């Protein structure tokens, strides 16, 4: 008799013997379905996004190479670009800056993001507009194509006139999609495209104006972007200010890296859910094993070896695990198709959704493996069930206790741990990161498990003599032999933990914004106010019946030297101990000068200004001081529009950046910058939004280059963006909340026999159906409450960690939302428990005893 024939016969026994167990096993295995769904959805989606990025990489950048600078190019760079154009390189430009846009007919105004483009922009990719020809006809006149939100917020239409500075444009269409732009950016800074031939006419790019100058290049035949970068990057990066060069490959790598990191993070969440599902599988299969003691004892009498017995039941578990994983993969594919819609505002590309076989295969494989290895742990006990149980049957718990003394269980436990590490590795690029992920997963499950253990033990002490019998019995049921209380608390708690953490962080972030608003005296800021416009703006504000409550002169400058060492020398220094961050050395600083410390600042070291000292003094923001490695007494030389100004550091400050006030990295002492070319930021307090709009119109009419921001609009915009982010995360948190449900079903089903027997016994002893129902209500209410408590308490801890170490702000627990989540979860537990236990009510004691 061949080995394969023997296997076939065992498979036949396994198939037949599983008749009544399939549904139950499938229920247990469904614990892993949603975890598989999450992995498949996330991996498939990130694969789709990466593929879409690769396919659209040139359109995303707009060219083969991008050159970007915060100031106009130097003559050397312009000459270089000219020669490149003559040699066959395609060149196209865009200048981006913020400005006030005014609808001529209504004088409604708001801050917009102007993009002045040259012909041929973009080189690759299509900007889609409505009507379609609008973008193509941009250079045919003073035309503007705008974000639809501008028309809404300014109550305008296509065909109206839009004033940008001194130039009037005709709105000829609206933007539908711009390659590489996130949808959410339209909320932050709605875009206006105009032809760059009218840029000078606007008069908007004046001294101190911030603009981004970008040039897109199309490589001639035979020259790759990488070769171009290799040859010209040293030239561009040596410019001052630096011209940043980016090739299409680098852009693609940046985007896919970000997407991969997001995918890996989300995948970790799915992995934890999958492993919790595995714990649900183990507890369900444990109950399944106890029901099979008699059958296995008979099989051993009939000649089955321990391996044959194990094979039969492992095969059953594997088959059901495969079905559960397949179901999960199916749900994952459905989720994959919905994710682009959920995340559409945050994706830089149009995602082409297609099945990702490798992601599906990986998810399936991991799901089946997790189901199998977690099921194997309790199944091992079957090997040691003695055939003597056919003659003298001991209690289930005695049999199991003896059977579980098995050294093979240690091997399986090790296999489980190794599996977690291996699966975590699939999500990490490096071994260190993979181990880190595995440790994070263990920590998450470990903390949840400890919490579950603690709460379950604490629940014992709830059963006070004074409580009604039905409540005491419900509490006692949580500790009945073979109870699933811990795994239910674990899985319910995980879902609640995720959702509550999201809500807590969101509430805290929104609360931070509100607090900062209340602390600010102003709600409107005017900026890019030139020196000779300063008094005029003040007059307009006063004429409108309001007052400027705060103003700050702003002087643009760059760092020239620290303690006599030039910036170029410091940038070239490769000694890690001396190294200062390149961004802090190269960037443009917009500094101010004043007598007093601002209300949004606090001196942390040194003294504000030392009297009697004629040297210009500076106060530096503490984080910047750390980046620049400057301390009190150091000398810092600044290049102020070509003039070198040497200063001494006399203090460092802590700045509350989120306050709606002009805040500065560097503040000079009075008397040091008054004669430097400068512009102003001026803040006013205007009570109503109608008056704000009127004041903005009045200022921009006289000074079209002056931009203004309405604080309530900022708050609404940020809130809008946060809501979009939160909606996306909530969708995924809801999915994760659903992870707990199959485990809950599985756990409830696992204790079905015990509950049935108990309910029947109570009815035989005279309990009414109502009393039995109340016992179940008490049991499941407590179980749901414990799971919710575990999740909520952990979420407070994790939200505190996130607020303190990631967002670096204070934390306040948000009670309202978490109470709602906890109550909903408890209700769910009660509904599932009562629904699956309804046969206790339905059946007569005799019928139930027969079945039990």
């Amino acid at each position, binding site marked *: 008799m061949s080995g394969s024939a023997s296997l076939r016969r065992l498979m036949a*026994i396994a198939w037949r013997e599983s008749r009544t167990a399939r549904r139950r096993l499938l229920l247990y295995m469904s614990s892993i379905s949603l975890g598989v769904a999450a992995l498949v959805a996330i991996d498939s989606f990130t694969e789709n996004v990466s593929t879409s990025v690769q396919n659209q990489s040139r359109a995303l950048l707009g060219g083969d190479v991008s050159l970007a600078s915060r100031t106009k190019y130097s003559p050397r760079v312009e000459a270089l670009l000219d020669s490149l154009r003559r040699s066959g390189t395609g060149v196209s430009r865009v200048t981006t800056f913020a400005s006030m846009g005014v609808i001529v007919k209504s004088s409604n105004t708001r801050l917009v993001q102007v993009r002045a483009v040259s012909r041929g922009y973009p080189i690759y990719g299509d900007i889609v507009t409505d009507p379609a020809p609008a973008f193509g006809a941009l250079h045919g006149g003073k035309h503007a194509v705008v974000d639809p939100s501008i028309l809404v917020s300014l109550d305008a239409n296509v065909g109206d006139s839009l004033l940008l500075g001194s130039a009037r444009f005709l709105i000829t269409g609206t933007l539908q999609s711009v390659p590489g732009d996130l949808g959410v950016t339209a909320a932050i800074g709605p875009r206006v495209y105009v032809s760059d031939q009218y840029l000078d006419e606007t008069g908007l790019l004046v001294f101190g104006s911030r603009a981004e100058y970008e040039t897109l290049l199309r490589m001639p035949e035979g020259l790759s972007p990488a070769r171009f970068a290799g040859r010209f990057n040293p030239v561009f990066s040596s410019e001052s200010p630096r011209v940043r060069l980016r090739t299409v490959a680098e852009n693609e790598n940046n985007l896919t890296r970000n997407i991969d990191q997001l995918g890996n993070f989300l995948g970790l969440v799915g992995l934890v859910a999958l492993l919790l599902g595995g714990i649900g599988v183990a507890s369900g299969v444990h109950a399944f094993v106890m029901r099979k003691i008699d059958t296995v004892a008979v099989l051993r009498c009939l*000649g089955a070896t321990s391996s044959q017995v194990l094979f039969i039941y492992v095969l059953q578990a594997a088959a059901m695990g495969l079905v559960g994983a397949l179901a999960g993969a199916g749900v994952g594919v459905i989720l994959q198709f919905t994710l682009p819609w959920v995340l559409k505002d945050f994706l830089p590309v149009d995602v082409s959704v297609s099945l990702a076989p490798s992601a599906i295969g990986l998810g399936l494989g991991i799901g089946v493996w997790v189901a199998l290895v977690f099921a194997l742990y309790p199944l091992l006990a079957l090997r040691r069930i003695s*055939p003597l149980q056919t003659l003298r049957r001991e209690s289930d718990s005695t049999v199991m206790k003896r059977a579980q003394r098995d050294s093979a269980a240690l091997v399986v436990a090790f296999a489980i741990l190794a599996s977690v590490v291996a699966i975590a590795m699939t999500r990490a690029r490096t071994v260190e990161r993979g181990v880190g992920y595995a440790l994070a997963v263990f920590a998450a499950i470990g903390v949840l498990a400890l919490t579950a253990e603690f709460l379950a033990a604490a629940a014992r002490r709830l059963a006070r003599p004074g409580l009604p019998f039905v409540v005491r019995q419900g509490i006692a049921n949580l500790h009945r032999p073979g109870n699933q209380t811990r795994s239910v608390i674990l899985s319910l708690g995980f879902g609640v933990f995720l959702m509550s953490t999201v809500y807590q962080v969101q509430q805290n972030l929104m609360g931070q914004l509100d607090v900062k608003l209340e602390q600010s005296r102003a709600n409107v800021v005017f900026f890019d106010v030139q020196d000779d416009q300063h008094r005029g703006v003040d007059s307009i504000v006063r004429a409108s019946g309001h007052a400027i409550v705060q103003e700050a002169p702003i002087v643009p400058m760059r760092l020239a030297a620290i303690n006599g060492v030039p910036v170029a020398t410091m940038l070239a220094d490769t000694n890690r101990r001396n190294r200062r961050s390149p961004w802090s050395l190269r960037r443009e600083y917009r500094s101010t000068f004043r007598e007093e410390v601002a209300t949004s600042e606090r001196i942390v070291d040194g003294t504000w200004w030392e009297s009697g000292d004629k040297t210009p003094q500076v106060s530096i923001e503490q984080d910047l001081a750390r980046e620049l490695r400057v301390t009190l007494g150091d000398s810092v030389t600044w290049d102020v529009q070509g003039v070198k100004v040497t200063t001494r550091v006399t203090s460092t400050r802590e700045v509350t950046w989120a306050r709606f006030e002009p805040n500065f990295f560097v503040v000079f002492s009075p008397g040091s910058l008054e004669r430097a070319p400068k512009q102003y930021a001026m803040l006013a307090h205007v009570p109503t939004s109608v008056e704000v709009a009127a004041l903005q119109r009045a200022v921009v009419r006289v000074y079209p280059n002056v931009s203004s921001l309405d604080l309530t609009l900022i708050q609404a915009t940020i809130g809008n963006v946060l809501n979009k982010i939160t909606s996306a995360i909530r969708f995924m948190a809801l999915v994760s909340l659903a992870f707990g449900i199959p485990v809950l079903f599985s756990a409830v089903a696992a204790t079905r026999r015990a509950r049935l027997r108990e309910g029947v016994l109570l009815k035989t002893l005279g309990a009414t159906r109502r009393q039995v129902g109340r016992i179940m209500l008490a049991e499941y209410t407590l179980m749901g409450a414990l799971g919710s408590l575990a999740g909520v308490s952990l979420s407070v801890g994790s939200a505190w960690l996130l607020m303190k170490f990631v967002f670096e702000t204070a934390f306040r627990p948000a009670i309202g939302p978490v109470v709602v989540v906890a109550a909903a979860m408890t209700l769910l537990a009660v509904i599932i428990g009562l629904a699956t236990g309804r046969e206790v009510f339905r059946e007569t004691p005799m019928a139930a005893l027969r079945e039990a």
Partner: protein
Amino acid sequence: MLAAINLTKEYQSGDHRLTVLRDVSFTIDQGSFIAIVGPSGSGKTTLLGLLAGLDTPSRGTVRLDDADLAMMDEDARARLRGEKVGFVFQSFQLIPTLTAIENVQVPLELRGEDGAADRARDVLQRVGLGDRLDHFPTQLSGGEQQRVAIARAFANRPRILFADEPTGNLDSDTGTRIVELLESLNRESGSTIVLVTHDLGLAGRTRRIIRLSDGVVVSDEPTDAGRQTSDVRVAARA
């Protein structure tokens, strides 16, 4: 074909050591039909477990066709059981998720035998259940379930069959029929049958009775039917 040699079985019960069987020795020849009787607690079920290789003795040994069961591990004993031993239990012990014919096929399939379904059908027809092949245990009466159990026990042509109170859960008429079936199968197949029972009337239908009391063989005698044979050898210690 079966020899019990100085069998002793002890259990630890709290601080005490309980001796359930004490120096039990006897031999059984092929084809015998033997009853082991004794009151409740006499050790007869324990003895059955040792003889069938379901348990290991504290001292002594059991030899089944020259195989020393005490020297074998559990899997080796299981394989031996599959080849040579059949069981009939008081509570039938049919696998509830399998039909009658599937239950009977199990020992044959575990041994990897071809034609398991045909053999199972034949045996079930022999025990009078040819028309109940596809019924589940819950669809059969007690007597029918026991007949399925007997069919299963005989399916692999065992050298020896152990029956633990096979009529314990049946009414007297059904029980009588079951015993008659066992007798006829014993005659036809030549299998040795060892019956454990507290029912002396049932024991009287066998050819030899080994009587246990307090874990010791107190008598080992042929019955009237058995006096016609000469297969008794008892090595009882005082």
